[in-house]
């Protein structure tokens, strides 16, 4: 007897130029279960679900919904099949209210003078209030999206699905942007939704979450389905091995730290963003040679602004930044670089690289103006080539055409290798890493973690800013937790537990 599946994706294959994103994948989801898709970045989880949601069409294979073969050509058709999806990058209109976002595409209408149809926002507001109460998703429908925080935005995305009466809910890496406490409450919401009869597909690479909520789990690796397991009784280490296809090292090897002299000293730093809104509100800390200082915090609490302010990309409104004895507070970016700052920015595409330049030009981005690269304003192409070749080799940057590869065409991991190589070669006393492993696979992450520790052991001061708590716990010698533009507790890493850091990140616990 065949079982009753609500979703069946049979032998689905999807190719993109250069890669096979999904290779003959078959998954079957039962009604009313939480079905997890586990895999590394680039394993093909999101692509698979994008096909179910009608954003791509499969090159081969079939999709069956409620026992019927369907060709899902658009998200709106998926919506008609009562399928909803919360994307990794929220799809919200920033200058619209929560209600306007939720009703977009399915607007309730009324007619003025019985003639002119208009969007009936009042009815929408009421309906959303009652929905949010029913599922415990607290939002104010009249607030504008740009004024609410990330977890509220996520609730808006969930309400969007519920408003459309979705029965099958897909969550794409929903916890990536949340604090541990927010994650707990989201997982609770997901359970509630299942108990309310919804079917849930959860895309994630976090094993803990799967252990907590999922009923079954499909494991993808490089586009192929590896296995489908019942979560109960499954061991996380075993899952991890299935996911990456080899034994995983969960801890970073690291000698005890030897602190040297003070390299970075930040005094009462205040920074305003482009909208003249104070995002860093009086932050002070210092970092010594041979120390990894990590700032933990939820996205958008001012941590990247601290990094940008130190590097000179954002103006400081008050306070002091002293690097290796030099006050750099009012210096230009160039002078700061020369005073001893290396910076691996969060956004490698729009900050760290000029994507349309070739590799050698990008590798020289920090020193093109100096000898031997330039003499009296004239460039020396040979120096660019030699330097490029050296770094490509030393940092194992894989690229199709060596020095002349256009950086846009390289993979994220290799782009990051190029940036890290370039910045480490600066040999600056202070190196700032912001989200250095975002979007990379485990192999690349291990490599970068090793490099960060090596820098420390060479006697550099390292400022690490990351949203991944695991990364911070594994690497940091000292941790400062940021909440709402202020550093709460600063203490040696050994004095923190993970959940304690989480509580500071949420602002639940305050500096004593």
């Amino acid at each position: 007897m065949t079982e009753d599946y609500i979703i069946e994706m049979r032998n689905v294959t999807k190719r993109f130029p250069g890669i096979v994103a999904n290779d003959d994948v078959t998954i079957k989801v039962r009604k009313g279960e939480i079905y997890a898709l586990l895999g590394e970045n680039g394993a093909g989880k999101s692509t698979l679900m994008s096909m179910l949601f009608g954003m791509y069409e499969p090159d081969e294979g079939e999709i069956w919904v409620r026992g019927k073969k369907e060709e899902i050509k658009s998200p709106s058709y998926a919506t008609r099949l009562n399928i909803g999806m919360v994307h990794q990058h929220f799809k919200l209109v920033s200058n619209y209210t929560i209600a306007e976002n939720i009703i977009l595409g399915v607007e309730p209408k009324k007619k003025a003078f019985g003639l002119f149809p208009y969007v009936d926002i009042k009815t929408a507001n009421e309906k959303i209030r009652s929905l949010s109460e029913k599922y415990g998703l607290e939002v104010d429908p009249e607030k504008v999206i740009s004024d609410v925080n990330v977890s509220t935005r996520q609730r808006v995305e969930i309400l969007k699905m519920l408003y459309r009466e979705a029965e099958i809910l897909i969550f794409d890496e929903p916890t990536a942007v949340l604090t541990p406490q927010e994650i707990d409450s989201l997982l609770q919401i997901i359970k509630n939704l299942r108990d309310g009869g919804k079917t849930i597909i959860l895309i994630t690479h976090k094993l803990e979450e799967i252990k907590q909520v999922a009923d079954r789990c499909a494991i993808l690796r490089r586009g192929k389905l590896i296995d489908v397991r019942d979560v109960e009784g499954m061991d996380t280490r075993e899952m991890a091995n299935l996911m990456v296809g080899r034994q995983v090292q969960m801890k970073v090897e690291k000698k005890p730290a030897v602190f040297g002299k003070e390299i970075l000293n930040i005094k009462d730093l205040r920074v305003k963003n482009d909208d003249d809104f104070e995002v860093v509100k009086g932050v002070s800390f210092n970092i010594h040679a041979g120390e990894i200082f990590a700032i933990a915090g939820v996205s958008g609490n001012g941590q990247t602004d601290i990094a940008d302010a130190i590097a000179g990309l954002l103006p400081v409104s008050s306070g002091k930044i002293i690097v290796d004895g030099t006050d750099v507070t009012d210096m230009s970016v160039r002078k700061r670089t020369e005073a001893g700052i290396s910076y691996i920015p969060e956004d490698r595409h729009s900050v760290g690289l000029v994507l349309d330049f070739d590799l050698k030009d990008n590798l020289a981005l920090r020193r093109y103006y100096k000898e031997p690269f330039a003499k009296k304003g004239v460039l020396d192409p040979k120096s660019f080539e030699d330097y490029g070749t050296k770094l490509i080799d030393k940092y194992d940057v894989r690229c199709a055409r060596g020095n002349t590869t256009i950086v846009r065409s390289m993979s994220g991991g290799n782009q990051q290798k190029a940036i890290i190589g370039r910045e480490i070669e600066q040999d600056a006393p202070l190196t700032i890493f912001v989200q250095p492993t975002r979007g990379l696979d485990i192999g690349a992450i291990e490599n970068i973690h090793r490099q960060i520790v090596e820098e420390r052991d060479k006697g550099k001061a390292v400022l690490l800013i990351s949203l991944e708590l695991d990364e911070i716990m594994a690497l940091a010698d000292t941790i400062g937790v940021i909440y709402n533009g202020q550093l709460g507790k600063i203490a040696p890493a050994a004095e923190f537990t993970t959940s304690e850091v989480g509580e500071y990140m949420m602002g639940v616990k305050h500096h004593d």
Partner: protein
Amino acid sequence: MTDQNKTRIRVAILSVLLSLLAGAVVILILGKNPLTAYFNLLQGCGLLPKGKYGGGKSMITDLSSYIDFLTPMVFAALSYAVAMRAGLFNIGISGQMLTAGFIASITIGYSTLAAPIAKPLVLIIGIIAGMLVGSLIGFLKERFNINEVVSSIMINYIVRYVISFFIQTKYVDPVSRQSKNICDSARLTLHQIKLGGYKYDIPLGFVLAIIAVIAVKFMFDRTVLGYELHAVGSNKVAAKYAGIRTGRSLIVSMAISGALAGIAGVTYYLGYFASIQPKVLVSTGYDAIAVGLLGNNDPVGILVASFLIEIIQNGSAYMSSQSGLESEIASVITGLILLFSACNAFFLEKLAQKKAEESRKKGAKA
């Protein structure tokens, strides 16, 4: 030459052919023979012999006049390319040309200075005037975040009306209704020089144009300034991160762009012509965009493209007189070239995708 450059050239040639084809269809509809018309274009530029020549004229006369006409275009297109390198769209070239031409005319053009002093001065004043207007646009962009397209257009109109006011009130020639002719010693084209029984226009600026092409090419590829402008044009944030003063780069690129437009202006108003028509902005500044797009913003590409576009523009008068077609057809064909060139990026991407697909298939088979 890299594969990428080859594809670019192929796409550029394709867009020219498509435009000529489209133009041919229009000419056919109007009941003329497009081949004859295009043949006339080449004849008009002295690239093919005409049936008969007037007194003192020869094919070389036409050619020299064509080169004279071409010279300002090379500068104007280089001006466009330098601004574009830093990501700025200089649509104010015509206004910068006019400003430079007007100021050089009233200061040196109407003076009695001897040629060896007057000619270099004309050039220098043109450069300074163009540079000032260009940097103003760059400054407004950098300081006040004003879109350079909007500010250039505003300045174009302001300059056009203000200068026409001064021409009409102070410098008008009552017969031609244009500004009074400048003296020959200040003119950058040796006009109607007799050599071996024929008359020629010898554009001194053309030598400068060739030098400018080489200089800009060198600046783009081999200098710190070129690297910085390119970085700012490709990714402003990354450029700032690299320690480049992006605001300064924007202003510098507009200053150089304006200076080149200034030279274009003096070689036009004090070279090809010797007077200024009030209330008119020349189309050279806009055609320069077509040349820049077609030449893919590369100085050498621009030189080739300006030869081509100016054949159409310069030969149109002769074509019009021979075939009875309106000479504006030249602008239409130029416009079409622009149109197809604007889609270049799309075709390039498609071709690249196709290539990637093919190599993937090959890989799969192997």
